[in-house]
């Protein structure tokens, strides 16, 4: 009996948890909608960030490559979608062409950046990727003259939503008497994508490639001596992370209907990295928690700070926007101070840390 249980896949062992999570996932967009569609959009962003953070987790958590320019690939995916499905160039290609294309182009950018730089040691790689992210953003901001490619700081508007035949993700549809709004539809699409990236993360972790990543993280010289072509294996992680970023960017474009360089600042890269580290690097549930918290916290603060100040002092003492970012920064510092391995680290990492502290 015990043997049988061991052989069963985790979801068979924890079927109750799976059902519960499924119910919660189904209910979220409808419960959120009670507070207005804005809350559904926030839920959508939380899931989009889960997707992005788990994509970055492959690069940072598994392969141990510190990528501070992840947002560049997100931007590439978003602009590929925006340029090929908007009135800007008058192109309206279907999403099933552009999303994979966006992923492929992001992947190509990842390889172009990674091939010459992945031999650099950690902190140098961090600053190079950071620089690359800035280069991409500066180009997006300025490539409106002499040829208007990106429309500069104004960004690109009227981007097509994802559409399958007559079924558009932007409109409200009524199914069995239940109104399902545009954001709610994107919610389910995003959940599907997130489940996909979770499966990819889980399956890669215990695979030949996943072990090679871990080996490189532990001791690169020994990994080479074992016959691992470390450059190619790192490049693989980098390219995979970039592709996920590209897909996320495409969905972001379609969902928002508008992109501008402002969405792809360094702060965005840092936020995604913070999700990975804050949650618990390399540990999938931790990364998911990190993504949800860091998306929700600023929103909760946004809706909480003004009324709170109002109630306490009867007026705004401190600019709510700064206070919000201040608390956000402070909570990052505090979490790292008291949970250096993240909020929900893998049991193994927790042990490592406990041992190194002794």
């Amino acid at each position, binding site marked *: 009996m015990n043997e049988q249980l061991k052989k069963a896949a985790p979801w068979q062992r924890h079927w109750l948890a799976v059902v519960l999570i499924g119910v919660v996932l189904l209910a979220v967009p409808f419960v959120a909608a009670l507070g207005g569609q804005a809350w559904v959009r926030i839920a959508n962003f939380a899931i989009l960030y889960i997707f992005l953070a788990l994509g970055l987790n492959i690069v*940072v958590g598994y392969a141990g490559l*510190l990528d501070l320019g992840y947002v560049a690939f997100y931007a590439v995916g978003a602009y590929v979608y925006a340029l090929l499905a908007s009135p800007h160039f008058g192109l309206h290609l279907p999403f099933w062409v552009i999303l994979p294309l966006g992923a492929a182009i992001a992947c190509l950018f990842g390889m172009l950046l990674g091939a*010459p*730089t992945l*031999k*650099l*040691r*950690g*902190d*140098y790689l*961090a*600053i*190079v990727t*950071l*620089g*690359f992210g*800035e*280069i991409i953003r*500066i*180009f997006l*901001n*300025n490539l409106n*003259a*002499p040829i208007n490619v990106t429309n500069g700081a104004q960004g690109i508007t009227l981007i097509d939503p994802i559409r399958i035949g007559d079924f558009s993700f932007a409109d409200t549809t009524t199914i069995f008497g239940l109104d399902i709004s545009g954001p709610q539809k994107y919610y389910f699409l995003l959940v599907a994508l997130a489940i996909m990236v979770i499966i990819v993360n889980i399956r890669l972790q215990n695979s030949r490639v996943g072990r090679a990543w871990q080996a490189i993280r532990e001791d*690169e*010289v020994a990994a080479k001596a074992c016959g691992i072509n470390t450059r190619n294996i790192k490049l693989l992680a980098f390219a995979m992370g970039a592709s996920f970023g590209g897909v996320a960017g495409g969905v972001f474009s379609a969902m928002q209907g508008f992109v501008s360089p402002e969405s792809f600042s*360094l702060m965005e890269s*840092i936020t995604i*990295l*913070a999700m990975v*580290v*804050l949650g618990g*690097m390399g540990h999938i549930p931790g990364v998911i928690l990190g993504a949800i918290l860091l998306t929700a916290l600023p929103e909760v603060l946004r809706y909480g700070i003004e009324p709170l100040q109002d109630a306490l002092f009867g007026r705004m003492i*401190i*600019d709510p926007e*700064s*206070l919000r*970012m*201040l608390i*956000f*920064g*402070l*909570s*990052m*510092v505090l979490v*790292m*101070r008291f949970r*250096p*391995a993240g909020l929900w680290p893998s049991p193994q*990492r927790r042990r490592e*840390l406990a041992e*190194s*502290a002794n």
Partner: protein
Amino acid sequence: MDTLLQQLINGLTLGAVYALVALGYTMVYGIIGLINFAHGEVVMIGTMVAFTVIVSLAGSGMPPLMILGIGLLISVVVCMALGWSLERVAYRPLRGAPRLTPLITAIGMSMVLQNVAMIIWGRNYITFPPMIEKHIFHIGGATFTNVQVAIVTLAALVMLGLIYLVHRTRLGMAMRATAQNPQVASLMGVDINRVIAMAFVIGSALGAVAGCMVGSYYEIAHYQMGFMLGLKAFTAAVLGGIGNLAGAMAGGILLGVIEALGAGYIGQLTGDFLGSHYQDIFAFIVLIVVLMFRPSGLFGERTGDRA
């Protein structure tokens, strides 16, 4: 020809500032291997404090140079205290934590400082009151001001002072020893905690000087100014080989000159396809190219794999 000379002069000024900020990054990195992301914010606070002091003394009837001097001094002292507290409160408890932990803390601190600055000094650009009369000098078709002369001279003096400190004093020796091998240094009686704290304090002092320079050169300040400045300066430090003081100085000046030249010539180089808005990408492109060929920076030691 006159553009070339002009851009070289501007680049040298900017480079002197980068070099001072880069030293702050490199000292901390050389000793504890941390990218102190909040350093750019320390520089910004330095500018802001100097601004406040200068504005509040402006009507006091003191001689302008004295006001400037007091502003600089107070700004240096405030930043030193800030650097010290940063290390004490945010980084010291994290020694021995996973590598990325202090990095996230640094990013968090940077957000905190930025927003504290915004709460204190507002979200708009602040204009520096002109304290000294500007003199413009002409040389071979190019111009430079007395402010530029003052910036470059002051930067050179400060850097000479730092070199003296690191190579000729007990503290400097302790710092070099700690950078080489913290364990051995502590066995030899070096107080590691003090050395690390001093690296932050000295780096912040240099940052404050740089902050005052930026303020008086551009005559404006903004709560977000530390970010790009810090990024460029860090790039300069990496360019020179991070952990290497001479490298940071050279990297800073080199970066300033490259940026100025790039901004001056990019239109010509690309047939007006790219304009001077692209000034900011030079730093990063140069960085990527240099690291491709010299993975440890221009003056960094080659650290080969050890078996």
